[in-house]
């Protein structure tokens, strides 16, 4: 039986199809979920894709966080459901308090679109098990509100607990505190990151195929 990975579409989502395609390429069965439907339709893991849910009105991800499906996902995440939030999905995870801190306007105020070097800091999460800790990867990054902020105490805790999953290398594209590109929760089932691994799964369209391990990691984790 193939593993079912849900990809939620919100009004304004634009990377849901790429995420679904990445799941398929990794060997899983992508399942389209609708934000207004609380039911996760027997999926074993969920991806919150990038885009501009609700036009990012109020704050990025703030309105999406109150979509009916999020109620089920937040409860599931607390029980160990693997959840990956990419870009706008990362913002939703912070707005939902499944991950600490918040994402704010890039310090230079420009929208950034570039291939970004990252270091995998934590290879023990549900979504990073197929990486080696310390591995350096390149995946696309595109955001206007990707600056990660949290108070010093929270940042120190995240460092101490190994919960910084990814850090920017070479150049910090948005002023993120301590070069943070991605985080995990304490249990390792919830991961959020600003760059887009789902755009780096095929040689034809991506700068690399460094994004594939995100999706194979969760499939292995669920079978194990």
């Amino acid at each position, binding site marked *: 039986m193939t593993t079912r990975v849900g990809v939620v579409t919100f009004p304004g989502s634009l990377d849901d199809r790429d995420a679904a395609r990445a799941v398929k390429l990794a060997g899983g069965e992508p399942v389209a979920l609708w934000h207004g439907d609380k039911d996760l339709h027997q999926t074993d893991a969920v991806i919150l894709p990038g885009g501009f849910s609700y036009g990012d009105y109020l704050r990025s991800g703030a309105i999406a966080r109150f979509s009916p499906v999020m109620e089920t996902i937040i409860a599931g995440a607390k029980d160990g459901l693997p959840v990956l939030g990419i870009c706008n999905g990362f913002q939703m995870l912070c707005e939902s308090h499944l991950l600490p801190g918040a994402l*704010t306007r890039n*310090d230079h105020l420009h929208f950034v679109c570039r291939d970004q070097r990252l270091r995998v800091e934590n290879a023990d999460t549900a979504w990073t098990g197929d990486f080696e800790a310390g591995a350096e990867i390149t995946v696309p990054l595109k955001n206007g509100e990707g600056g990660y902020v949290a108070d010093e105490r929270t940042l120190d805790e995240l460092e101490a607990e190994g919960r910084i999953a990814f850090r920017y290398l070479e150049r910090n594209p948005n002023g993120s505190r301590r070069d943070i590109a991605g985080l995990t929760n304490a249990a390792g089932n919830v991961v959020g990151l600003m760059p887009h691994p789902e755009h780096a799964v095929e040689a034809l369209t991506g700068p690399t195929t460094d994004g594939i391990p995100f999706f194979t990691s969760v499939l292995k984790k669920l079978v194990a």
Partner: protein
Amino acid sequence: MARVVVDVMLKPEILDPQGQAVQRALPRLGFDGITDVRQGKRFELDLAGPVDEAALARIREIADTFLANTVIEDFTVRVEEVDAAGSATGNGAEEEVAR
């Protein structure tokens, strides 16, 4: 009609690049002497019923859970007097710092 105003501002320690961009533009426009600008959001909530303690408590909850992200933002809630046409009359504003 009763109106409650919720002002949301980034916490002082959070970088406000938009405010900085505004501040940098001021000398070019001939306005000197402004040492800092912070940009926030103002929400005007018009209520069907009276602004009593219960209504204010509800609005504080809305501000705390939704209008502001208290990880990075502070908010204040205050009641504004409005005339029949819905314009602020400019008096009776009562500041209440909620956070």
